[in-house]
């Protein structure tokens, strides 16, 4: 039994999905690690933020705190109080479709103690970035997203910016467990 295992992975072959839903996450690991490399169908030469729902929970139990550097060296604070949102709001960046071709935005999440019911607020440690040959559009983001719940995380759904702009084919993801 390996101490690091891929739980789920995939690559979209069409440009029609507005969410990636990973279900039935087993509680047999200690921690999770999630990657998404994505691009949307939105005709814009910018980047935008996606969203994440955990366990289908749509109550106001989410928040995110972090800092980002973007476009020509500007900085910004993402400061959402705990229990102020109904999803993780902007936890990963999306490359829009007028950006240079074949270039996607990468995000890594580490989710410590995701199945420990004594941990009453789960955390998503976030490192998200975009870089492209359009050098005025980039984004580097470090943050912690949080969801106030004792429940084990058994489902993670990642959403595109809106239902109007599905993820583009080639978007990929994988979820792994640290035993």
């Amino acid at each position, binding site marked *: 039994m*390996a*101490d*690091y295992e891929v739980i789920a992975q995939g690559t979209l072959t069409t440009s029609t999905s507005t969410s990636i839903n990973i279900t039935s996450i087993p509680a047999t690991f*200690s*921690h999770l690690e999630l990657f998404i490399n994505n691009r949307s169908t939105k005709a814009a030469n910018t980047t935008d933020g996606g969203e994440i729902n955990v366990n289908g929970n749509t109550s106001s139990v989410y*928040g*995110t*705190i*972090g*800092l*980002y550097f973007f476009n020509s060296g500007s*900085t910004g*604070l*993402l*400061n959402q*109080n*705990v*229990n*102020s949102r109904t999803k993780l709001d902007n936890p990963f960046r999306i490359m829009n479709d007028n950006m240079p071709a074949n270039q996607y935005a990468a995000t890594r999440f*580490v989710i*410590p*103690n995701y199945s*420990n019911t*004594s*941990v*009453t*607020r*789960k*955390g998503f*440690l*976030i*490192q998200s970035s975009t870089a492209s040959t359009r050098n005025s559009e980039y984004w580097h983001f*470090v*943050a*912690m*997203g*949080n969801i*106030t719940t004792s429940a084990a995380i058994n489902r993670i759904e990642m959403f595109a910016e809106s239902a109007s702009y599905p993820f583009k084919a080639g978007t990929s993801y994988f979820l792994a467990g*640290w*035993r």
Partner: protein
Amino acid sequence: MSDPVTKIATVTPTGTAITQFNSIPGTYDDLMIIGSSKNAYTGAPSFNICSLYLRVNSDTNTNYSWNRWGGAQGGGEVTGSIAQNAILLAASSTSESSDAGFGHFYIYIPGYKVASVYKQMQLVGGFTSSAGAAQMGWTGHAQWSRNDAITDIEIRGSNTTADRYYVTGTTMTLYGISNS
């Protein structure tokens, strides 16, 4: 080829216990620690109160340097310190009455057994508290300015203050990473 990841130990300290990973074998290339933490302090949170204190090989001398940048309740924060007696990780929430929070972190230590190299650590973490109070998400880096192989790691809930020891739910796991 060996498995790339090996779980070495899990600790669940409570009360006056200290997180200790002892007798770490020298059979891996890198180390990774992933954890969640909460302390018993019932007052208002702050960066220092929500910090863990990491030391290596029982070294209490001023051989540690660390820095971090990230987002905090009051704005962006960039800070660090050199020649300290511990590495500070702002990754432990308090037990303030309405605070359901936990701090979370991971630490990656490349080349933990390589001779003649000061040991480096990549840090990522954060903590939350009750709504509108202190919280932070950050990344950082630390150095232990010694050439010795790392064989022991301790992470304290507080440097000196007894009421900041860990509470139930605090859990940390040490992994060995093999690159070949």
